[in-house]
């Protein structure tokens, strides 16, 4: 790759305007130099795919919670990109219990100290943990 071939595409939403990535490229004399790149559309596209997939999953879970199929814990777990195994490890609760707590009827009966554990692990307040946002 030559210096002038280093992609400098405008993708402000992706880089938030300040992020630059270093790319190694050959200068006129055939020496390698580091060239900061403003962004690349290919890069942005694959990231967008993953990001949209994540958001779609969160949204799907949110709807399931509002429909009463899952507990709010499931929503916050998706939001923090966790799975029951790692949520359990973070909160100090066994995985099989976390999986049970994803069911709304069991979640409703949880004691405050268990809820506190989850709230701390998910970096939200206990009050937030009981509901999910009405709008996406």
């Amino acid at each position: 790759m030559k210096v002038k071939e280093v992609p400098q595409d405008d993708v402000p939403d992706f880089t938030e305007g300040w992020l630059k990535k270093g790319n190694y490229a050959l200068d006129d004399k055939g020496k390698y130099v580091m060239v900061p790149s403003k962004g690349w559309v290919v890069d942005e596209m694959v990231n967008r795919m993953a990001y949209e997939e994540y958001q779609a999953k969160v949204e799907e879970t949110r709807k399931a919670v509002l429909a009463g199929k899952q507990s709010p814990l499931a929503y916050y777990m998706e939001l923090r990109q966790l799975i029951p195994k790692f949520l359990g490890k973070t909160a100090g609760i066994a995985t099989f219990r976390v999986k049970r707590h994803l069911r709304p009827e069991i979640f409703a009966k949880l004691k405050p100290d268990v809820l506190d554990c989850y709230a701390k692990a998910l970096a939200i307040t206990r009050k937030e943990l009981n509901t999910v946002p009405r709008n996406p």
Partner: protein
Amino acid sequence: MTTPVTTETLANGKTYTHCTAAHCETGVTSALFFDKGLHLSEPMIFGIGSGLFFGHLPFIKWTGLPITTFRSMPGLVFKKTAKRLGAKVCRKRFRSPQKGMDELRRVIRTGQIAAVTTNVYWLSFFPRRYRFNFSGHNFIVLYENENGFRISDPALMEYTTDCSVYDMERARFARGPMEARGLMYYPMCVNPNPDIRKACIDGMLDTCNQMLKIPIPLFGVKGIRLVARKIIKWPEKLGYVEACRQLAHILRFQEEMGTGGAGFRYMFAAFLQEAAELFESPELNELSNEMTAIGDIWRDFAVVSSRIIKQRKSKKEETFDKAGGLMLICAGREGELFKNLRDVVGKLKA
């Protein structure tokens, strides 16, 4: 070469110069040794620590998809570089977050800068769309201030920044695949006149072995071939949409995570070029050119794949066969290159 952007004064009055780099771990390692008075560029560190690799790990999932890595295990580059340069290092993991944070504070209070491995999701200074649950980002902690910690992130920032205490603790002790468990590392003392030629030879030979000799078809050149053949079969096996998803996942590993372009291939070419100067060896220079050419093919692979993904619905022009074919070419040429490199290195004198 890295260019200095901002300077910071450390707890003991020493000056730290922030440099931007292409990749987090090599950039951090380069900066740590720079602080100790050993001036090595990022590609040099990458080569000596034999960071170039290829691995396909279908049994470790990240965001639900298998990991395809273009570099060696996180943490290994620093470890190997330190060993080959004869530096004494301190690498620590912690069970208790409290102890981990206390130890970090103790170390940076003495004016020693320390690198930490963190989970990207919890770092709020990152751009929103980069924040995925991935425990393998390294940066350097400089000192403590009223906002938390002053940090220098060579891979992303052009200047130093602040990170709150809460973010730092969550990021260092996040649970998940490949968890860092608060890993923190810094060199304790560095040999001021290391045998760089010997270190380069060790690094290059190790890279050749990693790419050619691992008897498991998931790693090295064999791994590239395996993934290429898989890609060709994907559209039939998984359906077009799912195949695109998997392909995009590979591209993320190749380009998104600060690789210096083409999954570290350009960075390795830069290393070979520097090594060629060091040994005054025209053969190494030729190999560097070949590596650049291979990097260009990887880049083509990325462009072709992105076209495939874009036309997800219409299925025309570019095909998975073509993308897989490009990857097979990469595998063949890389195989040749590393065999040649092994022969060339055998003739070099330390």
